[in-house]
């Protein structure tokens, strides 16, 4: 029982935070922003997790937290916007916060990158980490 709680509790917490973020973007009819930055942040987090696992031979702990942190980093300029700071080009530092909305295919493109990064991370777990276990 406690193993299941340990496994799923972080996902529940992160899911709740994401639901709150989704609702906050909804107030602006801008839910696509939420989806873009979640997918971009998650993609980068998964790549980082794969590199970590490749180099250490261990799975990344708290994967939900990595993904949440990736999302929060990618959307940080939107916190600044709410605080009254308009978007500027230097905010591209936050995982291409602005340009990420303008790639061909838009959110479908980022969905594809996210699923590719997830597949890569799971492949690292399957090959590299399993061989170390």
């Amino acid at each position, binding site marked *: 029982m406690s193993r299941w709680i340990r496994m799923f509790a972080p996902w529940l917490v992160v899911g709740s935070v994401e639901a709150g973020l989704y609702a906050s973007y909804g107030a602006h009819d801008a839910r696509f922003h939420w989806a873009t930055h979640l997918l971009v942040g998650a993609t980068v987090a998964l790549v980082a997790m794969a590199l970590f696992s490749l180099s250490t031979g261990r799975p990344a702990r708290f994967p939900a937290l990595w993904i949440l942190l990736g999302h929060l980093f990618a959307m940080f300029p939107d916190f600044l916007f709410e605080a009254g700071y308009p978007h500027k080009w230097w905010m591209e530092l936050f995982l291409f916060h602005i340009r990420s909305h303008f790639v061909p295919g838009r959110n479908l493109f980022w*969905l594809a990158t996210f699923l590719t990064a997830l597949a890569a991370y799971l492949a690292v777990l399957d090959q590299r980490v399993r061989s170390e276990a």
Partner: protein
Amino acid sequence: MAKRRVVPARAALVAAWCGAAVLSAALLASVRLSQTPGDDVDPAWQRPGILDLGELPEPAPDLAGVDLRAGLPTAVFFADPERVQPLCGELSGWDRPPGLAAVVVAADPTSCPDDVATVEADPSEAAEAFGLRRPRGAVDTTGYAIIDGAGRVRYRTLDPLAAQLLDEVSTMSRGLR
């Protein structure tokens, strides 16, 4: 000795990937389905957007009785009959950025405060001239355009909630350079 973490079976990893694919695709579909008549066809133009994207800036069209090239940045609001009164009410208490002029285009803008210029015109037609899309359905346009001191459109959006979100107009107006 450090405890090794167990990697789930390959089938479980594949199942996790499939679950993530279904969940994320469902989330994207829900984002798409939740669009309202106030949403832009191209969601990348939605607020909270930034200035100077895509085909902008472009010269603002002429607006009867208002000089948009007088050197002052201007927020031009387009309001349907239902929303013009709430908008004018909010504009009277708006902590407008210094130097920002405001214009309301509506069929009957008489309820607007004195420091806001008004244009009596069809808001949908005027908005279309500024490049705003007509909302889906038989409703008039409500939204705004932000014009810089050189008379160029720098940002425009449909926004049925413009009256409640004047802070966003302030923020974007401060981004003018």
